[in-house]
């Protein structure tokens, strides 16, 4: 197992101007005094790292862009020196937070990539999701970013809203592609038990409806040159997210912030998702990754990539060839058209990416 220091860092900024109905990530409504306390803690956590430690950084949330420039600038200037020259530096934003001033700040602090939650192009759908954005905001924000020199923009798109039609999905993906992002991610709406949407009686759309909508999104993306390189990520050549690929390659990364997950020295951890315990440095959950669990993590991550993994990498890591360990299950999955195991590579087919959980359960059960 590799012991080299992680080359990626994730920083979680939990504050949001308003809370979206479907979100289940650690988040807080923005209040200045909380944000100050929080950033003080983050900045002190960052002091543990040498300058030039990381190849990628990702600032996620929450809504990092919801922080006022006066708080963002000092934080970003603490983080930036930790990155190597030419590192990928991603920042999550809400479209309506981005104006010329904020775009200039991000650019001057070294942010090279901005990921924005466009989600949908339709006003009523935004309202359903509890988002405050107006449908034109994304295009305006992208304009500002480009003017400030940030060309690499990723957009998020949600599909599978209750009662959503194929035509509505088409208008969303067309609107998204018209903004010409270099990358987009798409997710079907998850309605977890206990969430606000579930309490209001909504259910997730059936899998055949979701599948039809996803096919449409894939097809439109393909026409514009996007490749689906991960279950829900699509990129133009050269614009795959390097940071996210560290997750999918089962590599280690540092997680900073409330509820942030990390993976260091063979231990996966998650910081407390609650404000006060987090500030006090308490409530971190840890899991030593070993034995079969290590194999399970490896498959869960690597098989999300359309390129899968090299058979030789698996063997080097676990000391046994993949096909020896999983021969029967892998054969069945190959016959079902979900997995390809030829040419020294193990990779899901396009259908396999849509049915990844079935693949994983088959493989887990034959461990």
């Amino acid at each position, binding site marked *: 197992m590799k012991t080299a220091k992680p080359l990626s860092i*994730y920083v979680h900024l939990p504050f949001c101007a308003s809370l979206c109905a479907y979100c289940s990530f650690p988040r807080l409504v923005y209040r200045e005094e909380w944000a100050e306390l929080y950033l003080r803690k983050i900045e002190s956590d960052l002091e543990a790292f040498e300058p030039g430690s990381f190849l990628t950084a990702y600032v996620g949330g929450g809504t990092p862009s919801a922080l006022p420039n006066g708080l963002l600038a000092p934080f970003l200037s603490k983080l930036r020196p930790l990155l190597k020259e030419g590192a990928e530096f991603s920042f999550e934003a809400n479209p309506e937070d981005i104006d010329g001033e904020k775009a200039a700040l991000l650019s001057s602090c070294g942010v090279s990539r901005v990921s924005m939650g466009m989600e949908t192009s339709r006003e009523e759908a935004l309202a359903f999701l509890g988002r405050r954005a107006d449908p034109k905001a994304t295009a305006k924000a992208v304009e500002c970013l480009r003017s400030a020199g940030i060309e690499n923009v990723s957009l998020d798109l949600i599909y599978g809203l209750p009662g959503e039609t194929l035509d509505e999905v088409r208008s969303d993906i067309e609107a998204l592609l018209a903004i010409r992002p270099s990358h987009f991610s798409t997710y079907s709406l998850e309605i977890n038990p206990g969430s606000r949407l579930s309490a209001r009686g909504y259910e997730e759309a059936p*899998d055949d409806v979701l599948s039809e909508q996803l096919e449409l999104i894939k097809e439109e993306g393909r026409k514009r040159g996007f490749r689906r390189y991960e279950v829900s990520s699509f990129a133009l050549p050269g614009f795959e997210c390097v940071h996210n690929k560290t997750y999918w390659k089962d590599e280690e990364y540092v997680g900073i912030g409330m509820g942030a997950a990390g993976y260091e020295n063979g231990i996966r951890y998650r910081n407390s998702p609650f404000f006060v315990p987090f500030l006090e440095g308490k409530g971190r959950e840890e899991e030593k990754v070993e034995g079969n669990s290590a194999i399970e993590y490896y498959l869960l991550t690597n098989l999300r990539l359309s390129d899968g993994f090299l058979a030789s990498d698996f063997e080097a890591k676990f000391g046994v060839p993949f096909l020896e360990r999983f021969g029967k299950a892998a054969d069945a999955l190959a016959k079902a058209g979900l997995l390809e195991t030829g040419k020294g590579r193990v990779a899901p087919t396009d259908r396999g990416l849509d049915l990844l959980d079935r693949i994983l359960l088959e493989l*887990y059960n034959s461990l």
Partner: protein
Amino acid sequence: MPYKKSLIRNFSVVAHIDHGKSTFCDRILELTGAVEARNFHSQFLDDMPLEQERGITIKLNAVTVSYKSKDGNEYLFNLIDTPGHVDFSYEVSRSLAACEGAILLVDATQGVEAQTMSNAYLAIDNDLMIVPVINKCDLPSARPEEAKREVEDRIGISTADCVECSAKTGMGVRDALEKVVELVPPPEGDPEAPLKALIFDSYYDSYRGVVVLVRIKEGTVKVGDEILLMAANKKYLVTEVGIRTPKERPTGELSAGEVGYLAAGVKDIKDVFPGETITSAANPCDKPLPGYRHINPMVYCGLYPVDTRKYEDLKEALGKLSLNDASLVYEPESSKALGFGFRCGFLGLLHMDVIQERLEREYGLDLILTAPSVSYRAKVQGGETIEVSNPSEMPAPQSLVSISEPYVDASIIAPKSYVGPVMELCTNRRGIYQDIVFHEEDRVEIRYSMPLSEIVFNFFDALKGSTKGYASLDYEFSDYRESDLAKMDILLNGEVIDALSSIVYRPDAYKRGLALVSKLKTIIPKQLFEIPIQAAINGKVVARADVKSVRKDVLAKCYGGDISRKKKLLEKQKEGKKRMKAIGSVEVPQEAFMAVLSIDEKDE
């Protein structure tokens, strides 16, 4: 020293389920000081946790307590409990045969229900003095006068001596006991005559073997006596005799009129069925007590461990349960789909439920039950008759001459406004109308002769459904009748799944087949390929539904690299998958095998 017979009262309390019998018995035990109030374990007679939870009594029990009457005498009460469910009416009748009297407990808010009547008739059949007691009179909705009138009109016993009480508050319970002293006759019998004792219950004890509860009708039994079980024709040496207060207290002997327990090194509980007569091996009585019946299971099902490696565990658990339950029968069987398991026979559906729950809860087993079946009688070429309690044993159509099935006399009591729906339901279930009795007020008793298989097929739920829960049901086996029956197979992905086969009334086969495949379609999760589900009779498909193949199944959102959460979700799914049975390439959840029971009337 035997107790003075004139001061003994042997009685039971009988009631419809939920009419407050257990609470009433608790109050008796308190009043007689049998149980100290501070140690009082509510509902003492129901000593299995499961019974307490379900509020029903399954295992019979009996206690001996002393009661100081207002007349100044101290009486010995033998309170004999009876199970309160239709599955156990034979046991009830044997318990009643051990008594001279019975308290008939009627809920003042509900009045006379189906089991009130059937229990009352059992008591009358056994020549018992009946003391009617109206319970729950403390409730605002109590209507004791109406309840009394129902007792008079419908059961035909006088309520001149009726007591109103509330077991909950204790009001009137002592008055009821005074009525027992006054009205229930003391036992008869000659302590010097040849021994004649009735077994009305038994339980297994690993040190002493089977312990039986007995009522001595004639003669005396002592430690060291050699006894003869007349129906089993087996002899044993008595090792212990005593009474239960409710703790066991050895007394060395029991004589005519008394109730107590006896141990004699009996190893197998199936040798001491309720109703059996004990006599002296040296000086036997001339004939056994009347009323003994060897009772056969009414309902059968296959029991299989989900994990085939747990077969031995299941075998051991069934062995242990049957030590204490003479009416549970089982024998090994195997299924192509489910592997090795057991075909088990039960007195009824409740009995089946209780055994399943005990196996799962007390023995930690994960079980698959196949749909319950009754025992059919198939006449084949050559004149032989075969008992068919498993659909897979059904003879091939070409060798089958005729087939008959058990019928029951069913009695349903419901408010008048539900007569239509009840009759419609019974007719749909092949019921043959017998008669209908309009009682005072709002209530009607409807009697049908019906195939037991229709009752087993979810009848009670359907009845509750069509009467908003107001109907009560009682039934009793009557006879076997020839029917137009056929075996219906279910095919998954083109393969017959033996454990899903059932025997159906041929004219209903089409609609039942359709209802079943539609139900299975909702139970079997989508898989990687499309799965046709077919119902077929003699190879001819009568109904079909398809489970479409799954097209999307992936946990997409994976923010900030929180991969552990995804893995936990997958592990949960993995556990769920373990509880499914892989049959060929199809994964089938446990409940699919009971699907036939969860079909609603509207599905048909």
